[in-house]
């Protein structure tokens, strides 16, 4: 790593529907059906590529998890959106989320390798185990398997998928018999320009960090404070080193929500628009949901209750994201916040850091986290599309370039090439899978 002449920050854009804020659709003048329009996603991909961003990222869960009464949510299937974006871009990486609980490893390996092939080696699979209990019923399960079972399955699933990708790249045929899967044969799909897709891991639970350190090429994490960011960065890199990997081969990319204005006042005005239009109790309900308690258990004028600070009584069966929960609780404790203060600080952002400010202020935050060793880059979450991304590529990217922190043009067409991850070290546990 020290041999690299220049180290750049990695920037992906997380295309959350039409923007991460609940009311993005009320402000951005997009068609009401933009969230199911492949052409809309293609235009966002073209903006991202104009800004030489590393990748287009899609979060996902296979179900209608949130009531769409107040906002659109994940709809079109990610690998297909990404293939549509691939058709109008040449360099942009394509990262799709898919659940290891609600897919089959053979089918998923085949489909992602197909995407990687048609896109010229630009794909990555973001592994999630899916924490939303409502999804289980779509797949014949009476309830979501507990967290331990999901992560055991995820670990075996990832081993099988990577062994299948290697089998398509001249590796041995897979002969796998495990707790969850029996798979044999060679994946009959062509090699891509980067060999096979990269692996990304999202999820900040302890088991998630362990999986990331052992297997992932990049981690999409949720951090609210710089101190926690540095701690978790070091934890994942240490797991990688213990697993015999080069820690530089797992990139840490926290989410970063941006509301940008040409002046601070303009940015705050834009932010306020969103705050005042929230449906009654919406921020509190969201916060309660991510803490795993009922809204009426939170007193706005008191600190978080003991029961929340003590942690979930049974992490195995906690029905929300452990990673989000941890980062929110840590922020409240570190800064001794009441529930009301906490809501102000979160600014509707859930477990991810949110910045409201000028392009300089956004670039400063990115630089500070990068230089402090809290991040190798960010998964950007603009408040609204497309203007929230345009202002980033037009005004923040040039600042980062001036500071020597970001590329002027793409140096490699494949995602693996840009992230400088050799095929041989992308997965440590290959032999264990076959």
């Amino acid at each position: 790593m020290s041999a690299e002449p220049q180290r750049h920050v990695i920037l992906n854009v997380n295309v959350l529907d039409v923007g991460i804020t609940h009311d993005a659709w009320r402000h951005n003048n997009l068609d009401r059906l933009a969230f199911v329009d492949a052409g809309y996603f293609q235009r966002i991909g073209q903006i991202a590529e104009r800004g030489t961003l590393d990748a287009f990222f899609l979060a996902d869960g296979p179900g209608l998890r949130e009531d769409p009464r107040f906002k659109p949510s994940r709809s079109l299937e990610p690998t297909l959106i990404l293939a549509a974006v691939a058709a109008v871009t040449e360099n942009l990486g394509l990262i799709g989320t898919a659940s290891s609980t609600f897919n089959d490893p053979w089918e998923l390996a085949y489909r992602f390798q197909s995407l990687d092939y048609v896109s010229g080696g630009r794909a990555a699979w973001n592994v999630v185990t899916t924490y939303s209990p409502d999804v289980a019923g779509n797949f014949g399960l009476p309830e979501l398997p507990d967290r331990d079972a999901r992560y055991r399955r995820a670990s075996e699933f990832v081993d099988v998928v990577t062994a299948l990708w290697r089998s398509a790249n001249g590796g041995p045929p897979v002969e796998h018999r495990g707790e969850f899967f029996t798979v044999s044969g060679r994946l009959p799909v062509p090699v891509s320009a980067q060999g096979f897709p990269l692996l990304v891991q999202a999820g900040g639970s302890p088991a998630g960090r362990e999986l990331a350190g052992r297997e992932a090429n990049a981690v999409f994490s949720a951090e609210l404070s710089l101190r926690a960011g540095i701690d978790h960065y070091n934890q994942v890199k240490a797991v990688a080193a213990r697993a015999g990997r080069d820690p530089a081969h797992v990139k840490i990319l926290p989410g970063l929500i941006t509301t940008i204005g040409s002046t601070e006042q303009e940015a705050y005005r834009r932010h306020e628009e969103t705050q005042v239009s929230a449906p009654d109790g919406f921020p509190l309900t969201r916060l309660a949901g991510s803490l795993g308690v009922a809204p009426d258990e939170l007193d706005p004028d008191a600190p978080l209750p003991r029961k929340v600070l003590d942690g979930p009584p049974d992490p195995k069966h906690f029905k929300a994201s452990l990673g989000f929960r941890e980062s929110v609780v840590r922020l409240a404790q570190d800064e001794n916040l009441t529930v009301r203060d906490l809501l102000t600080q979160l600014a509707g952002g859930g477990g991810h850091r949110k910045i409201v400010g000028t392009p300089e202020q956004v670039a400063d935050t990115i630089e500070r986290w990068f230089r402090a060793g809290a991040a190798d880059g960010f998964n950007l979450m603009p408040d609204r599309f497309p203007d929230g991304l345009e202002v980033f590529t037009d005004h923040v990217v040039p600042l980062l370039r001036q500071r020597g922190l970001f590329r002027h043009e793409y140096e490699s067409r494949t995602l693996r090439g840009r992230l400088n991850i050799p095929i041989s070290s992308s997965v440590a546990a290959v032999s264990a899978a076959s």
Partner: protein
Amino acid sequence: MTLPTPKAPPPALVAVTRSTLAELLDPAGAAELPRLAARLDAVADALILGADLVFEAGTALEAGTATGAGHAGHAGIDPTIAAITLAHHTRRVGLVVAAVPQRDHPYNIARRLSSLDHASGGRVGLFIGVEDHRATAGSPWTYADPVAAAADAVTAIRALWRSFPIDTIVADRESGLFAESHRIVAIDHRGAFDVDGPLQVPWSPQIWPPVLAWSAGAGGSALARVADVVVNPEDTRLVLHHVGSLSELRRLLSTAPELPSSPAAPVPLRARFGLAPADPPTGGRQAFPDPAHNPDEKQKPDEKQKPDEEPNPDEAQKKVSHVR
């Protein structure tokens, strides 16, 4: 099954294997793709993507291709990924995607096909298959007989496709109401697959993309009963070209007669097969009950009502407990 009246020219279908799709979409051949795509629009009513998933090896069609056998062992690509790429490069040809609910769960198939129908302006169809002979054996989702599972998957997929009416999306910027979500329904499908729904994709342009089945394949008659269009090797109401390689496809596209020109807007694939526009029922258990729009006072807002029938123990045993 409904096919166009004899007066209309028979639909011209071009069936390509997954390995031909890999050749066609090889990034090295990107310069040629727009021209081939334009020819497809001109000469074919529909392309069948992944024909090797539905036409059994050794059939008359397969044997009729000069080089088909030589390409059977080649690497191929996923038909849904190929379909969205071709949807981008074509404007009017139908895209019939072969899918097998053996390792691909019906929820995921329904979602990808609906996504494709949105992206193609209503040009997509589903060709249902029973087994992918090139995949690892077995199903991770069900112990049911594979033919019965494929037929059941079609029923579940159609129910999912109707669960989220697109006119629920009102996107009223003034009031902040995005969707009249009380009209979205669960499907509570029980069979070889248990699927609660709803689908997260609202109605696609066709709502119900046509479902095709192969009469001579495994489970032909069982699948014919649930399909909208049955493809039969002796049927003169279809012109079926089976293509086993890119060079065969190039040859076919350069020699096949052009179709009568059609309007600039894409024709729904259902119409090409002579099917009436879909008109599905919209009733069912509310997925997001709203007290203001609750047809049943007794239903508590946050309580999902399950069908009241007792689970059949034989049915229950067919499910694979995929997370043990």
